[in-house]
């Protein structure tokens, strides 16, 4: 297995997965607990489109899809449609709509994956908007992931942010590698010694990271 393949597969074990796991575990309880979950994966390839306005709009979209579009959003849309032949909402409009919407939901979770994949110029405004929402209600929880270099940004806006370091978990990786080996299309081509070596070398390399 070359280093490149190794690192590509390792990405399977990291933050995007963690975020999707968190989103799914929250959604599993959403029905019974009357909570709403919104989540967005920041992406290098979508940086231009992932502005604060579009991200906050997407969060609102997910929150309103839960119980039908509220009337205040419908009214804002109709008003926007008539002005200048249909203008998009501005950030300030979306923040207003978000605050009204959140006030009607007992508990709201917002998950934002890979903050570091946003354009650096978008990050302060995005964090400021999230802080604005958090200050609005005690029932908002925000889950962020990102490389360590954006930790300082998060701490600047949320001085008491709780940080959990994610490092490759060796048990997870061993399980993953063994499952992949079990699914090998030509198992007879691999001796048991080779199999043991593959697992050992991968785990050693990861421990050195």
């Amino acid at each position, binding site marked *: 297995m070359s280093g490149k393949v190794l690192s590509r597969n390792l990405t399977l074990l990291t933050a995007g997965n963690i975020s999707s796991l968190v989103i799914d575990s929250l959604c599993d309880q959403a029905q019974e607990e009357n909570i709403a979950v919104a989540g967005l994966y920041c992406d290098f390839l979508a940086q231009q489109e992932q502005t604060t306005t579009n991200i906050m709009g997407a969060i609102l979209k997910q929150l*309103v899809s839960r119980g039908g579009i509220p009337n205040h959003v419908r009214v804002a849309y109709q008003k926007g449609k008539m002005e200048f032949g249909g203008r998009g909402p501005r950030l300030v409009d979306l923040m207003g709509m978000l605050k009204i919407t959140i006030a009607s939901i007992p508990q709201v979770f917002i998950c934002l994956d890979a903050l570091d994949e946003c354009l650096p110029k978008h990050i302060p405004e995005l964090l400021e908007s*999230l802080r604005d929402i958090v200050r609005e209600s005690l029932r908002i929880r*925000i889950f962020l992931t990102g*490389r360590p270099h954006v930790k300082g940004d998060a701490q600047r806006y949320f001085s008491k942010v709780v940080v959990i370091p994610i490092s490759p978990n060796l048990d997870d990786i061993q399980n993953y590698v063994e499952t992949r080996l079990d699914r090998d299309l030509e198992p007879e081509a691999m001796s048991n010694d080779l199999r043991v070596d593959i697992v050992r070398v991968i785990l050693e390399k990861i421990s050195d*990271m």
Partner: protein
Amino acid sequence: MSDEDAQIMRWLSPLEPNNRHQSVRTERFDGVGDWLLETSEFREWRCNEGGADKAVLFCSGNPGVGKTYLR
């Protein structure tokens, strides 16, 4: 969803985060990351303990591990 509702959704944002979530969760390897859900930090955050001070949880990924996105 009615036509107008669909238009309102597009007006709110052109982003469709649910699509991405579907693809990431389909690729997810069972059991990976379950440890996080068991940490006291996550549980406290999840159960809304600690109030506004602990409203935000940040999972910081090791730079040696690679990027987040899956293709």
